[in-house]
């Protein structure tokens, strides 16, 4: 299994500012994902961040708005840039195990709840 820690767990931000969310995993994983979830809604994939390669973004998400770093196999950051109220959401880090008994299983962090005023 994998245990994921996200920071901050919640924050209130001012319009136009940027915030960086950190994701720490207790084991080395190649594949990591960032999702967004509006309260009570579905999860939407923002980007895939595999160590050793540039992050790949889903339609509707761009690197200038959501820059991602993946410096090693246990850590990643997602920055939400130039925030607007529409960016208010829960951002979740997720990893997938690609070997062993848990192959294919996604593990999620507890999420970072952002409120933009």
């Amino acid at each position, binding site marked *: 299994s994998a245990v994921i820690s996200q920071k901050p767990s919640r924050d209130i931000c001012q319009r136009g500012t940027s915030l960086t969310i950190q994701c720490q995993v207790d084991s080395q994983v190649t*594949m990591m*994902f960032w999702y967004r979830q509006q309260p009570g*809604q*579905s*999860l*939407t*994939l923002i980007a*895939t961040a595999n160590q050793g390669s540039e992050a790949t973004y*889903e339609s509707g998400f761009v690197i200038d708005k959501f820059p991602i770093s993946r410096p090693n196999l246990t850590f990643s950051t997602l920055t939400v840039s130039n925030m607007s109220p529409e960016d208010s959401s829960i951002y*979740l880090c997720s990893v*997938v195990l*690609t070997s062993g008994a848990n192959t*294919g*299983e*996604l*593990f*999620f*962090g*507890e*999420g970072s709840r952002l409120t933009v005023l």
Partner: protein
Amino acid sequence: QQPVQSPQAVILREGEDAVINCSSSKALYSVHWYRQKHGEAPVFLMILLKGGEQMRHEKISASFNEKKQQSSLYLTASQLSYSGTYFCGTELGLGAGSYQLTFGKGTKLSVIP
């Protein structure tokens, strides 16, 4: 290509059974099922792979009909702990092994005593 889940919500009494469906208009490689309790992270239940067998997790089982691109989650003899929102996540056939999932809108399940 968001999969369609049904029903949107269901209320059960303890011990009753329920079925949640997930369908896609695209050819799928796999279907994942997750349960999310309020304020918590989604938790993995099971994966169904193209050509794979029906899976089971305790009293919860699931199937994947490749011809219809549809998966069903079966909750048997429901318990209070089953309450939460159930999401199916689909991986397209072309993206096999990418684990890039598209999630449905979720089915809110409430189990009452």
